[in-house]
């Protein structure tokens, strides 16, 4: 079926829309479903209700009501304008910044989709890898330093402290070079 709005792309999202005559279904492509919220096309366009994605992901009606009530104070992505509410409706992010905007709420969504998993484990792009290796190194040195202090080996602890300082400087330089999208 073609999208009702653009009549160009395949419709892949069904949005329920509340009208005076009761709810109607609108078959839209993802792009139109996304755009209809950001740049509301017709003036009598009413806010669309929660659809299948939400019910799939956040099971149970109590969370559904809760979500609806929270819509007002929901964050909106500063980069693409997507709200969390709409994200749940269309099931797609609009840009990489959405992840930052919705960060706190995402583990719940990912948990549903990925069998309880919420953290990436796997390939890391080389540019990020360097930074993360350094972070791991610092963590390891910190643990060693704590152990040294416990065992009252203060000379050893001091050596480790200096080493940590060096690595921290390297990490700062790495971030300067533009390794990270969300610099710390």
């Amino acid at each position, binding site marked *: 079926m073609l999208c009702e709005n653009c009549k160009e792309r395949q419709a892949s999202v069904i949005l329920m829309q509340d009208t005076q005559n009761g709810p109607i279904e609108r078959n839209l492509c993802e792009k139109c479903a*996304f755009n209809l919220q950001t740049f509301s096309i017709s003036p009598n366009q009413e806010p669309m209700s929660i659809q299948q994605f939400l019910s799939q992901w956040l099971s149970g009606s109590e969370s559904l009501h809760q979500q609806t009530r929270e819509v007002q104070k929901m964050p909106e992505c500063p980069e693409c304008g997507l709200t969390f509410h709409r994200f749940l409706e269309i099931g797609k*992010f609009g840009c990489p910044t959405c992840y930052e905007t919705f960060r706190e709420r995402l583990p719940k969504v*990912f948990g549903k989709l990925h069998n309880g998993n919420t953290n990436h484990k*796997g*390939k890391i792009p080389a540019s990020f890898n360097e930074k993360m290796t350094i972070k791991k190194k610092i963590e390891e040195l910190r643990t060693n330093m704590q152990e040294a202090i416990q065992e009252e080996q203060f000379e050893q602890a001091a050596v480790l402290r200096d080493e940590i300082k060096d690595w921290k400087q390297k990490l700062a330089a790495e971030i300067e070079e533009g390794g990270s999208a969300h610099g710390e």
Partner: protein
Amino acid sequence: MGNKRFMQNAVTGWMVPHGEHADIVMSTRIRLARNLREFRFPIAFSDEQAEEVGEIVSEALLSEVEKGYSYTRMKELPQLDRQVLVEKHLISPQLADAEQFGSVFLSEDETISVMVNEEDHLRIQCIYPGLQLENAYQKANETDSALEKKLPYAFDEEFGYLTSCPSNTGTGMRASVMLHLPALTITRQINRIIPAVSRLGMVVRGSYGEGSEAPGNVYQVSNQLTLGKSENEILAELANIVSRLIAHERRSRELLLEKSRIALENRVFRSLGTISYARLLPSAEAARCLSDVRLGIDLELIEDVEMSILNELMIFMQSGFLQHYEGEELTSEELDISRAKLFRERLKNGPSKADEQTDRP
């Protein structure tokens, strides 16, 4: 004969049986979803951003990674040609729909395709014949690693590769294996197996996408999770499930031979007769018969038909291919006629009878 030349051009790497368990496993595919950091995803980007993404990616691919990629913009490709690429599994239906800013880079042997501005900025795909999960991943990963040196990917320490759809977040990897499982289908065991497999975090579906039943008894098994498991863990789990499916299928085949050999032979040879002589061949019938004949070859009931022809015919029987082959749009009856004709020619003139590589002037 012009037709033969068309066939040879139409055959792509993964259709030639090769690799482990090539009798049951038709192909292995790895897909990596990647996005550029500074741009909105295709669902939300502006026309200018779309153009820019296309330019940045083509510069990285054409200059740095490897020469020998062909570059095609969807808007410059006729509808029918796009459909053929979809039928060869080289691009997704979604990219074929992305008329405005979608494009594809294809390696010379067509094993690697990089789709640009599909659902994500980049979809790196590697497709190999037979069961070759490690090799296919290695190849896709190589391309990805070469690209990441040039392209600032959207990546997050907690969530991994950032993708438009949350079901791809993390590794961004979808690994899938296409399996021909006629004995499990005939004996209806597949209905019990599919739910069991999905409990293990994998998905089984008909080879032509979601919700489709399996024409020709070809099923696609792929990973569902992309978060919380490394690429290697995902590949190992998928390989494990696939090898169990293969073992199941083999056992069922032996059992069928043992318990109902005549019925099986009858079915296989009737199907061979149909695709060798029919004058009208609807696609559902063609798919069913191809599956039977394939099974017949695997079980050595049929000895004078080359297996390689069957993978090709699975692809050639589709409507985009047939219309391309005939050079015109066809009605559904014309399609059935054309399909029957092509099957007859192919089964008589295939590599089993005439050695095309050496004989031709």
